[in-house]
């Protein structure tokens, strides 16, 4: 083996070692993150059991308590956001896929891209100005609006992509039945694409569930009770954000329990999406 061959082999091994190490450290960081959430969060889940979802958090530095009010707030805000997101995002997605050249479709596509790329804290600032100031206080409804805006582009884009993926021959068959266009689209193409729409809804829900920044100034920080739609509320992600920064041991443990819950829910949704539609760009 001459010198040139040897140096090639050595270089190849070195590159292999470098890229393997980089990949491994990324996966190790991911694994460490999830393991820490399990190690820190699971004992709290086991210790509190059902009480965790029913009770409010304990006093600072005192007994553990639970995540009840924040769970209710999350459930309320995320469901409202997802429902409204589907109600707006799905029709907008259908429009963009059926009339891609109309001015409204093109404007909507632009808007969709803008909102999708928007730093999500900005959504919070806008909703703060439009809703929180006039209402005089943060509220579950303002939080839901913020989350809806962050979820919207994902729902609309996924709807558009999935409809655009229907083979042309199916489309031709649907239109050749002589139905008016709205019937052909809404009664044949859209139901045919039920999986795509369901995927869009799940992706939107996942987005709404995971976001913290948009609700930071809109949902309030009421961790101890749920007061109603037009009153301050909280989400699991907000609870983590605030409790993690306190020095109280019991609140930090609650934050870890919430981290574990959120991670499990998000992954559950992500893998449901994968099951429905295969590999989807998150």
């Amino acid at each position, binding site marked *: 083996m001459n010198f040139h061959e040897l140096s090639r082999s050595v270089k190849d091994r070195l590159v292999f070692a470098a890229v*393997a190490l980089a990949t491994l450290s990324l996966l190790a960081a991911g694994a460490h993150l999830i393991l820490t959430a399990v190690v820190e969060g699971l004992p709290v889940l086991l210790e509190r059991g059902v009480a965790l979802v029913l009770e409010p958090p304990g006093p600072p530095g005192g007994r553990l308590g639970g995540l009840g009010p924040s769970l209710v707030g999350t459930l309320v805000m995320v469901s409202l956001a997802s429902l409204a997101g589907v109600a707006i995002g799905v029709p907008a997605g259908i429009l963009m896929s059926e009339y891609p050249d109309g001015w409204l479709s093109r404007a909507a596509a632009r808007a969709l891209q803008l*909102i999708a*790329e928007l730093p999500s804290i900005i959504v919070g600032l806008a909703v703060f100005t439009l809703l929180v100031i006039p209402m005089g206080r943060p509220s579950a409804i303002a939080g839901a609006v913020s989350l809806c805006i962050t979820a919207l582009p994902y729902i609309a884009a996924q709807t558009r992509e999935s409809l655009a993926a229907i083979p042309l021959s199916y489309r031709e068959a649907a239109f050749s039945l002589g139905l008016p266009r709205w019937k052909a689209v809404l009664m044949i193409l859209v139901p045919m694409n039920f999986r795509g729409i369901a995927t869009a809804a799940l992706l939107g829900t996942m987005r709404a569930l995971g976001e913290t920044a948009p609700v930071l100034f809109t949902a309030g920080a009421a961790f101890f009770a749920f007061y109603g739609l037009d009153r301050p509320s909280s989400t699991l992600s907000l609870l983590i954000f605030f409790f993690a920064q306190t020095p109280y041991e019991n609140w930090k443990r609650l934050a870890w329990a919430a981290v574990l819950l*959120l991670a499990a829910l998000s992954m559950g949704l992500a893998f449901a999406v994968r099951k429905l539609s295969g590999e989807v760009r998150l």
Partner: protein
Amino acid sequence: MVDVLKIALAPAALVLVLTSVTIVGILFVESLDAWRHEGLGLLLNADWEPSEWERGRYGMLAPLLGSLLTASLATLIAVSISVAVAVFVNEYAPEWLRGLISLALYAMAALPTIVYGMWGLAVVSPLIRQSGLPLLCARGSPTGQSLFTAGLVVGLMITPFSAAMALEAYRAFPFTYIEALHSLGAKGFERARIVLGYIKNSIIAAAFLSFGRAVGETTIVALTVGNAFNVPLCPFEPAHTITSVIASQFGNAFLYPGMQSSLMAAALVMLLGSSVSTSLGLRLARAAASRAAGEQA
């Protein structure tokens, strides 16, 4: 003939358009006051002097630099790991491992940012503190929360997304060329060098998109950057980014004349930066994809 479908769908699309216009419009209107008083000086001075009685000074230089540095570091980390993952998966990894890696990346991409933030605060920051690295800086962070910590955790959070782009671009490299390279006896790193040269533009696109995402990241940064109004000179110092200033100050900003408007102005600048970066990235990605499709045809 009246198109019933179009009329039925139009309101939803209109809502989408109005939402985006409203958001940008609010930032403009709400930041006017700050622009009128300070002009571009707002971005060029580093004096943070809040006052409840008169208009204070809310210079955004430190957070602006903090944002740029944190996002650059995060992008550097994300892109280099992504390239490494793409090379490893395509040139070296056995078949069974490839599926596993893509599954792990998908799972990491699904995790909410607050999960990364909590991990960054409770695990990474103490690690940085114990490592002694902050001692290298004059104003090194006593808690481990620093520019570097934020950049690292944000970088790890973005990596699954940029890795997905790098993997996709790598896979789009024409298979006949790969066969040709193998038949010449090219080793893994030689194949990788040629493929990476070919998909260079897709990688640059991924970098721009990553930067756009990193600039706007709030949750992780607010928990890990250390929240200090220093002009960042050393990576292990606590600092502020535009997002962390907003997250930590906006809640009480109404008490201080001029602060709210200054924060809105900073948000507008950040929006501009992140959307320029993202649009460049998308444009490059599209050009690269259509080029790849052309070669394959």
